[in-house]
């Protein structure tokens, strides 16, 4: 291994900070946000100051990543990432169309699958329990405007 990067965490953090900072500068410039002056600050003044600080911090981090050895990133919960984020997004996309009684059990079962001790029995029981509980509390009790049965089922 002859990679000059000695701390991958510093390196990635530096890149992220610099990317977000430059992105904000770019948006402010392209969007023609007014800078103004110190007395009458325009909408771009404070964000630009922050962006430059962020780019600067990112730069330091980047330089440090070649100098100071760091710890590796470690195990990443790919299972957890995929099986938590995807069903959440699906929930947002489809809840009005399918309704709570379909989306909520899906959310529970898909996310439960991320656990290494997943078993169908308890997961199904939890799905049923949560659906009944959330329907009663949120929809009946608090009046959250989510359909119990979605538009695809004429709900």
């Amino acid at each position: 291994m002859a990679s000059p990067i000695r701390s991958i965490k510093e390196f990635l953090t530096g890149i992220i900070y610099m990317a977000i900072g430059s992105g904000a500068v770019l948006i402010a410039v392209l969007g023609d946000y007014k800078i103004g002056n110190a007395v009458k600050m325009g909408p771009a003044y404070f964000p630009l100051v922050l962006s430059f600080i962020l780019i600067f911090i990112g730069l330091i981090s980047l330089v440090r990543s070649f100098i100071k050895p760091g710890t590796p990133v470690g195990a990443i919960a790919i299972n957890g990432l995929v099986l938590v984020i995807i069903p959440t997004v699906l929930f947002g996309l489809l809840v009005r169309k399918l309704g709570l009684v379909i989306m909520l059990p899906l959310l529970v079962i898909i996310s439960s699958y991320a656990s290494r001790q997943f078993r169908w029995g308890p997961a199904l029981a939890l799905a049923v329990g949560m659906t009944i509980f959330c329907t009663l509390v949120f929809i009946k009790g608090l009046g959250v405007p989510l359909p119990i049965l979605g538009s695809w089922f004429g709900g």
Partner: protein
Amino acid sequence: MELIANLGLGLGVAATPINLLYCLAGVFLGTLIGVLPGLGPTATISMLLPITFVLPPVSALIMLAGIYYGSQYGGSTTSILVNLPGEAASVVTTIDGYQMARQGRAGVALTAAAMGSFFAGTVATLLLALFAPPLAEVALKFGPADYFSLMVLGLVASVVLAHGSLLHAIGMVVLGLLLGLIGSDVTSGGQRFTFGLPQLADGIGFVVVAMGMFGLSEIIRNLEPGDDRAGLVTWKINRLMPTKEDWKRMVKPILRGTILGSALGILPGSGSILGSFAAYSLEKKVSKYSKEFGHGAIEGVAAPEAANNAGAQTSFIPMLTLGIPSNPVMALMAGAMIIQGIQPGPAVITEQPALFWGIIVSMWIGNLFLVILNLPLIGIWVRIIMVPYRYLYPAILCFCAIGVFSLNNSEFDIFLMALFGLLGYLFIKLDCEPAPMLLAFILGPLMEEYLRRAMLMSRGNPMVFLQRPISVTLLVIALLAILLVFVPAFSKTREEAFVDEG
């Protein structure tokens, strides 16, 4: 005596059956999430915030406050019985608490924790009642420059208290400030960084960010391979009553812990965590039983538990008197007040005396409930600790998804929450702590506003921050706090101490 009249007014509000019920519900929920590792007050209060819309303001705030200080109680139970801190502020309690449990003194440790917390809660309530009104008067003298410096101090404190690299914590703060500016610019009315999305015109709701970064990403982190919570053993609770010797050894540590916790809790950016660590270190130094520390010293349970409960309560002071939240939980409380049509700040005491004193008195009542909940009813919590995480997190996910939707009845917020969950996990993996970012996110628009006003009034002269006595004092404290990081003894505790506050 004005104080007694005020407390009487508060008692009249807090002791109505309905508010007693919400207070009980709050501390019950607080104990519950305190007991459950992996679910903290920030995520819970975000999930419950939509529910409180339908409550009267006093009841809502009484319940939310109860969740916060209640979680400090519950956290100690898990620390003592299973050697897992239920809350970040209970990390040090595991050291001696669990050892006591192994020696068959779990019950005594629980009593020490509960008694310490109750005493601290009582004192902190009184301190809040005594000091909040004069502080609110000082707050009326605050100009824009002073507010700006106060927020700088709060952010610096949150950076100093974050674990991991100082540079990255500062980066997270700047990033948070920047994200907070998304939406309409107050002064010009123009849109900034909205990518042309109408859903972003009012900015990103902080509850969305909190649920993503503290709810979702925490779940993902707990699902990491090799982080199993299987095989938990709880120790039997034989006897709750401490011996005479135990009582004698508890008194002074509880007193010291209370004082330390109360003082540190007021500091912006701190809350309850710093106090518990400081109290433990102090006891270890001054106690004549210091050799027993780490092997089941009762002082090592009583002092930090007193301190974290005291800190949880005094951390309400900056929010209630200055309107500036000092940690993410207080920001959520401030958010709850704004939703209820109350602007947090120095005017609350004079304009809403019933609300203000009602909350304060409810804290004392809540502490009383907590002693009852945590000692005679300890059996319930022992069973709840054994609920496996695999049943817990899908439920949390459901509450987050429905809760975040109900804020604006918008699916867009669900997508944003998922995005912040992803970002939050990325930052956790890179050792960048989300707590300072969330605080900065909330303070971003306020800071810009006060900076603009201060500079307008001083005609563009930045020296205004050094010319005003309040402002310069706050900035000096902030500078000292940064310098503290470079003191070796402190930086060592900092490294050991600050795991994620969830």
